[in-house]
């Protein structure tokens, strides 16, 4: 059994209410932090925990906090990134909906550490019901004296604002999120300056993911070292994984980092194996933007060792043989999946969601989508496959924000690992377009 930190009490009836949450030990971290620790001591614990940002990039959270500029007389902000729009990723939604007070408690502890008196939770606009759940939780916490003016009589003030998002994937990119929060079009900003220096309303700002912020109560209650003791190497703690696709038990799982990928897919505790009568073909391990890996490479490293669910192990070998943990959107494909169709589908998403500010992404995402569409429907030629690789390469690394990379990687990796399948679509144009032609994908397995 893996250790549970975030989802420990998820099944307790009524855990979404303040009363039950408090009874299960909730808000003790707020009391401990505000009454007995200084903000710097809280930052220190988070640093010691080694927890890395759970929004995708995996940047150490304590280090990010310590970069926050602190000019005199300028407010600082904490912004929680609850936009969560990456296909395949649905863990933050699950957490906020089921145990909203965990995020609220984390927001209070983190805001205190950063010296923020007004903090924002920017929630994906489509999730209006979650927004209402959070607002109710905030009202409860406020009524109990954990929010508002003079929290627990300590003189610390904090106002929490829930903001519905702009309804675009790009609004999850941290600087686009800040623009959107300021009421503007959600275009990513040029960096530098970084948000830690000039963020929301030109003031120093920390943007963190829901799951990242939700870890802080446990860290404060149990100490950073205890957290660092969980997990493996520099991948400390636990991670929420949203598992979907052709598995027996799709869902959100909390794993201790370091679990073998094979166990995660096949053990009953987690995904419960591939659906009956089918076999594993490929996995997208960290949300749609990370490189796809074929069955053999996702289970084993290039040297033959078991691949583990951790930042380092998943990225072992770079993009040649590895991928990324990303936001933890674990999408499993069995042999009935058509990689070309799937790649086209991902590509369709990035084309639709590009903000359109920089030319490689604005034009390149649409180009890739159109070529993939042709290939999928049997109108491609061999030359198109190399063209896709080259277009992906011309986007990657040349854009303002990482959405360009996110659009390029799935295409480049699918061709790297499943080239025969793209070629098969060219050589078998009629079969490729047959509805329900399960066979389309099997080529790559032999």
């Amino acid at each position, binding site marked *: 059994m893996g250790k549970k930190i975030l989802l420990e009490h998820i099944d307790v009836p009524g855990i979404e209410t303040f009363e039950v949450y408090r009874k299960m030990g909730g808000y003790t971290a707020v009391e401990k932090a505000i009454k007995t620790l200084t903000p710097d001591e809280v930052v220190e614990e988070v640093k010691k925990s080694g927890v890395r940002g759970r929004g995708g990039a995996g940047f150490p959270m304590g280090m990010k906090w310590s970069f926050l500029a602190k000019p005199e007389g300028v407010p600082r902000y904490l912004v929680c990134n609850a936009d969560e729009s990456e296909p395949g990723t649905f863990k933050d939604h699950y957490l906020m909906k089921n145990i909203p007070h965990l995020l609220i408690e984390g927001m209070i502890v983190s805001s205190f550490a950063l010296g923020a008196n007004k903090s924002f939770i920017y929630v994906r606009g489509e999730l209006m019901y979650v927004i209402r759940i959070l607002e109710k939780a905030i009202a409860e916490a406020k009524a109990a004296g954990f929010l508002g003016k003079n929290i627990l009589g300590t003189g610390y003030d904090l106002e929490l604002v829930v903001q519905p998002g702009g309804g675009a994937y790009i609004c999850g990119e941290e600087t686009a999120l800040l623009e959107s929060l300021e009421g503007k079009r959600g275009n990513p900003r040029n960096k530098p300056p970084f948000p830690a220096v000039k963020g929301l309303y030109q003031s120093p700002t920390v943007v963190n993911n829901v799951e990242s912020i939700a870890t802080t109560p446990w860290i404060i209650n149990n100490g950073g070292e205890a957290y660092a003791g969980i997990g493996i190497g520099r991948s400390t703690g636990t991670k929420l994984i949203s598992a979907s696709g052709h598995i027996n038990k799709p869902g959100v799982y909390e794993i201790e980092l370091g679990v073998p990928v094979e166990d995660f897919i096949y053990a009953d505790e987690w995904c419960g194996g591939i659906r009956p009568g089918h076999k594993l073909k490929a996995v997208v391990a960290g949300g749609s933007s990370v490189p796809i890996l074929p069955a053999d490479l996702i289970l084993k490293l290039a040297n033959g060792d078991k691949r583990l669910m951790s930042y380092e192990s998943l990225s072992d070998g770079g993009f040649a043989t590895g991928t990324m943990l990303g936001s933890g959107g674990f999408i499993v494909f069995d042999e009935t999946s058509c990689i070309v169709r799937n790649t086209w589908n991902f590509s369709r998403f990035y084309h639709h969601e590009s903000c359109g500010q*920089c030319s490689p992404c604005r034009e390149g995402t649409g180009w890739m989508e159109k070529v993939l569409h042709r290939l999928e429907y049997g109108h491609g030629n061999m030359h198109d496959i190399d063209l896709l690789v080259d277009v992906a390469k011309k986007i990657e690394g*040349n854009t303002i924000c990482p959405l360009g990379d996110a659009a390029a990687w799935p295409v480049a990796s699918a061709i790297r690992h499943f080239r025969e399948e793209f070629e098969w679509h060219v050589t078998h144009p009629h079969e490729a377009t047959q509805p329900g032609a399960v066979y389309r994908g099997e080529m790559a397995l032999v």
Partner: protein
Amino acid sequence: MEDNKPQLLKVTVDGIEVEVEPGTTILQAARKIGGDVAPPAMCYYQPLKGSGGKCRACLVRVAAGSAKDPRPMPKLVASCITPVQDGMVVENTTNPQVLEARKGVVEFLLLNHPLDCPVCDQAGECDLQNFAYNHGMATTRYEEERRLFEKRDIGPYIQLHMTRCILCYRCVYTADQITEKRVHGVMNRGDAAEISTYIEKAVDNDFSGNVIDVCPVGALTDKTYRFKNRVWFTKPVDAHRDCPTCSGNVTLWYRGEDVIRVTARKNEWNEVKEFICNTCRFDKKKTSDWVIEGPTKIARSSVITANKYRKDSIKTSEFALRLAADEYKQTDDIRDRSQLGIQQLPPERFKALPHAMDPEP
């Protein structure tokens, strides 16, 4: 007192060293050296605060971050928004990766941009034409359907043809920064994004005409001049008038005796020096309205600047271009004719190219 001068920073671009003040961007430092060392810029526009970073035309490689931290930067950076550090080493035309990335940017910009230079109003003054000529490939690999838009009148003076727009945002920054009420901006996302006015409102204010000058391509055009002529048949003359609204410093574009267009004056990087008002631009088209200063010096900025692309500047491998250069070696720049003393071409030569003078289809 003299010691209070800020410490100058040393930057090397393509092997040439230059000293600049702190806060200077790589692009500005390179422009200080001048020539080919200056990266191309499609979205950056020096007079517009906050512009730059979008088109990615100006990507360069930083081979050494600074003297203190000489590590190279992992990715190419947009030179127009990246400040220099002391001891920075920049590779512009000397780095194949940079040239490859720029080739990509040209190709991306031309995916949806029609190659209708023969009928486009901006031909000869088009930054994209220059950029494509200097950094692009001769062919495109794009076979898909292109983005199309209806032409739109946005107010009495300006027409927008989004088909040609490269979404550089220059016009948006211009409207934001020099006019009072901005009514136009970017709508939609990705390659569905478009410059538009709020429910087709008119762009109607004293300085609106400047968006035409800043547009690097032919997307925003002057309705009072549109398709009246080709820029290379006109002669620019610097002039000024006593204007209560703006500086009144302009360029008049003559065809024969007539002023057919008025624009702001531009620097060698094709950027407006001082924005002008609509009265000067649209309503003062008589020589008697102006005090004439003399012929405008056309700097390096245009493809059509005389002798910019001479036969001997074309690589031997580029056979087709050499042929073209041979054939058209006499097609000089009319604006420099007075200075060069070259004979006027017989009018039949122009008649042989009817499409160049035709109004846009």
